C-alpha cells in the first residue's frame, strides 16, 4: 500500500521535502516504515533512526502493524519545543 509520510524540521530541511510517498506491505510495522524512510533519505539516516512514527496525531510503537492504516502518517524527529 502506498503511504504518504509528512516530514518535519531537520528531516524536511535536509531532504527539501515536506512529504514522501513510500510503498509498504499491509502488514508492515512502523519499524519497516522507518527503515524504508532511512533507505530513501540516507542523508537523514541518523536522525530517522531516533525518530518516531505518528498516525493521526498519535505515536505508534515500532512493532505495531501500520502498513494498512489509512490515517495521516508523520515522521516525528526528537522534539525541542519550549
Amino acid at each position: 500500500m502506498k503511504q504518504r509520510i509528512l516530514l518535519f524540521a531537520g528531516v524536511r530541511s535536509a531532504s527539501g521535502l515536506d512529504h514522501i510517498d513510500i510503498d509498504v506491505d499491509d502488514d508492515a510495522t512502523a519499524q519497516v516504515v522507518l527503515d524504508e524512510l532511512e533507505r530513501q533519505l540516507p542523508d537523514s539516516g541518523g536522525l530517522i533512526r531516533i525518530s518516531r512514527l505518528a498516525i493521526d496525531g498519535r505515536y505508534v510503537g515500532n512493532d505495531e502493524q501500520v502498513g494498512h492504516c489509512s490515517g495521516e502518517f508523520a515522521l516525528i524527529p526528537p522534539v525541542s519545543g519550549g
Partner: protein
Amino acid sequence: MDDSRLIRLVNEPIRLAEWEAKLADIDCGAQAWFAGVTRRTTETNDGQTLLTKTLFYEAHPTMAVGQLDQLAIDAIGKFELRRVVIVHRLGEVPLGEASVLMGCASPHRKDCFAALPWMMDRLKQEVPIWKRETFQDESTEWIHPEPRDPT
C-alpha cells in the same frame, strides 16, 4: 475541549497580561505561570559557548495541539488542577521573548508548584514542536536532542 484547558499555538509575541484572566477561578487559591524565553548563550559539552542570533519554531500543528491537550488532561488528573493554559509561539522568536507560556490554577499552591515542571518536561519530550537556532555566524541548526533512555 472544556474551559478547564486552553491550548493555543500563536505566531505573535506572548504577553502574560493577555492570558492571566484565563486561570480565574474563585475556588482556586493558587495560580502559577512559567515562561520559557529564548536565550542567547548555549554551553556545549566541550566547554564552548555558542551565541544565538535568533530562533525559529515549527510544529506539526494539529498533533501538537492534541498532544498539549492530552498533557493538560493528564496534569489535571495527576495534580489537583482546575485550569491549565498552554501557549506556544511558532515562527521566528527574537532573543529574550517568550516561546512558551504555561499556567495552572489549583485550590492549594503545592499542586501548582509541582505541576509546572512536570508539564514542561512532558512538553519537551512528547509535543511535536522543533526549534532551529540561527547562530551569530549565520549557521543554522535544527535541535533534535538524543532521546533519553527510558530506563
